[in-house]
């Protein structure tokens, strides 16, 4: 009887979680709706069977992650209407002088640097329209550029603590600082970024070899005119710069990244005093609610004892060489991330890794394996990351839409090559990554 009492919460909570994921992955329901419904069901089941209370559900929400995301979203929402992103794309367009490879490197670099500090999705949403415009003016296909932007922003996001939601989650769970990411993830991402760019250059060699029909027109673009509100842009960028500076020292100053981000957001709001409704409209509330709901669901799984059971099943993990365990984790996460959203995967795997740590395994390097898998895996398919979906959707409004089969021909090789490179670097740098 006792066994049944323990098994029922495990089975029920797992079913609720899997059903919710199934709705998210098949896109039968918006992920926020599926997540919130799953969280409500999880709590109802927990209260009914007595394994999960409301207080536990609230405690399961990682407010450090939510605060950091909210703070950065407010900063981006302030920067967004100023035309700053358009300005950067136009500047890159001019600097390229209409040379295709140069344009791809410039736009790719701009997107990467931005997505290291800002949300990938926002970066791509704001850079892609100007990219399409520049390509149409040049008379070349926008496909190589849009795909490069999505793939390189996903790649670049892995380099910093704030670059990608999985990193925010991993940092919060592992206690890694902003500097830890710069010393451990950034060098590996830099190498992988070059691998991705060189491969993209090769895969799109035919498109990039075409001479633009109207290279001179791009020289008449005026970046200054693309910047609609220079004063607000300047203020938002100064605050963002200060925030990034504080991120460097957050560990020494004993400040959480979310405190830094929310302070920066508050400071920027006071300085800029924008139209509040417009700024709040720019925040991706559905993402924040989705995160909160996932935390509540995963908290339910934890309270039901699912992760203890999984860690029990992974008893053999201790026998696997730690380097191999990391490589396996990276590839499993990468393959899953190519098919489904990497956020639920990361949130679900965090307690498993913590459980392995509690069981005495060395887990520092496993966190990096999780970050690399979640970050590079999304490149594999058109639905692998939100940035991919966005460039594909935007491309439907051009002469050359990006299709799922095109993505598997050009994006999948990039994912495989970057994961392979990440594996080699992970193995070589393992002694350092586990420190």
């Amino acid at each position, binding site marked *: 009887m006792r066994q049944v009492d323990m098994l029922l919460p495990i089975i029920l909570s797992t079913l609720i979680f899997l059903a919710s994921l199934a709705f998210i992955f098949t896109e039968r329901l918006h992920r926020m709706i599926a997540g919130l419904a799953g969280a409500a069901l999880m709590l109802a089941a927990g209260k009914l069977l007595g394994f999960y209370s409301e207080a536990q559900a609230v405690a399961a929400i990682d407010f450090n992650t939510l605060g950091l995301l909210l703070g950065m979203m407010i900063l981006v929402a302030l920067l967004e209407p100023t035309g700053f992103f358009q300005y950067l794309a136009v500047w890159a367009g001019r600097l390229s002088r209409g040379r295709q490879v140069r344009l791809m490197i410039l736009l790719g670099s701009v997107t990467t640097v931005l997505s290291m500090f800002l949300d990938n999705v926002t970066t791509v949403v704001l850079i892609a329209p100007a990219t399409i415009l520049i390509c*149409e*003016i040049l008379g070349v296909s926008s496909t190589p550029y849009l795909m490069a932007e999505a793939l390189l922003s996903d790649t670049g996001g892995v380099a910093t603590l704030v670059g990608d939601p999985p990193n925010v989650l991993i940092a919060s769970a592992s206690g890694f600082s902003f500097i830890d990411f710069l010393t451990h993830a950034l060098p590996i991402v830099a190498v992988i970024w070059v691998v991705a760019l060189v491969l993209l250059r090769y895969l799109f060699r035919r498109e990039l070899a075409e001479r633009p029909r*109207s290279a001179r*027109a791009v020289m008449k673009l005026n970046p200054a*005119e693309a910047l609609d509100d220079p004063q607000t842009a300047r203020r938002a960028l100064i605050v963002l710069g200060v925030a990034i500076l504080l991120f460097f020292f957050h560990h020494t100053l004993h400040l959480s990244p979310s405190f830094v981000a929310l302070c920066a957001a508050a400071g920027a709001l006071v300085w800029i005093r924008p139209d509040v409704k417009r700024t709040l409209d720019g925040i991706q509330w559905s993402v924040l609610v989705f995160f909160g709901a996932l935390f509540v669901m995963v908290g339910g799984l934890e309270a039901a004892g699912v992760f203890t059971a999984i860690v029990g099943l992974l008893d053999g993990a201790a026998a696997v060489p730690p380097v191999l365990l990391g490589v396996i984790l990276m590839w499993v996460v990468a393959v899953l991330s190519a098919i489904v959203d990497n956020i639920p995967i990361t949130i679900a795997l965090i307690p498993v890794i913590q459980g392995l740590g509690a069981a005495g395994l060395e887990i520092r390097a496993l966190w990096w394996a999780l970050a690399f898998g979640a970050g590079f895996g999304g490149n594999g398919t058109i639905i692998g990351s939100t940035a991919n979906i966005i460039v594909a959707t935007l491309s439907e409004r*051009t002469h050359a839409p990006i299709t799922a089969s095109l993505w598997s021909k050009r994006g999948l090789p990039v994912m495989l090559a970057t994961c392979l490179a990440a594996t080699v670097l992970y193995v070589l740098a393992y002694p350092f990554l586990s420190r």
Partner: protein
Amino acid sequence: MKRKVISISADATTAEAAALYVKSHVGLLPILDDSGRPIGMIQLSDLLNLELPDFIRLVSDVDFVHDFGAVETTRPTREALSQPVTAIMQPVVMVEEESGLLRAYALMLQRGLSDLPVVNAKGKLVGIVSRVDLGTAILAVWPS
């Protein structure tokens, strides 16, 4: 209201609709079924979208673009021009003959139209009213 309406049949191609626009200088082409009832309409902008695709709406403004370069010389593809008008038509917005002037004007404002098909009680197209026709008719009864 103009009673001599230029319209196009549902089996016409997009290229034929474009040619009709060029020939007749109208602002709107209603698409009629065999019994003369409107089943859709094509605005000039629906055709121009084929030359200047939708991407232009993705950017907040185009002040900084002083030369549209290749966009200026990109023409719609053969496939785009040979598709039937029904593939690019919009649902028809129309008023009945008996409708009030302000109802017609409000419809135009809301849908961003400059011309509105007018149908009789049986739903058959009897004319087209332009924004200018309507506006001047409304102004005409103002006290002098």
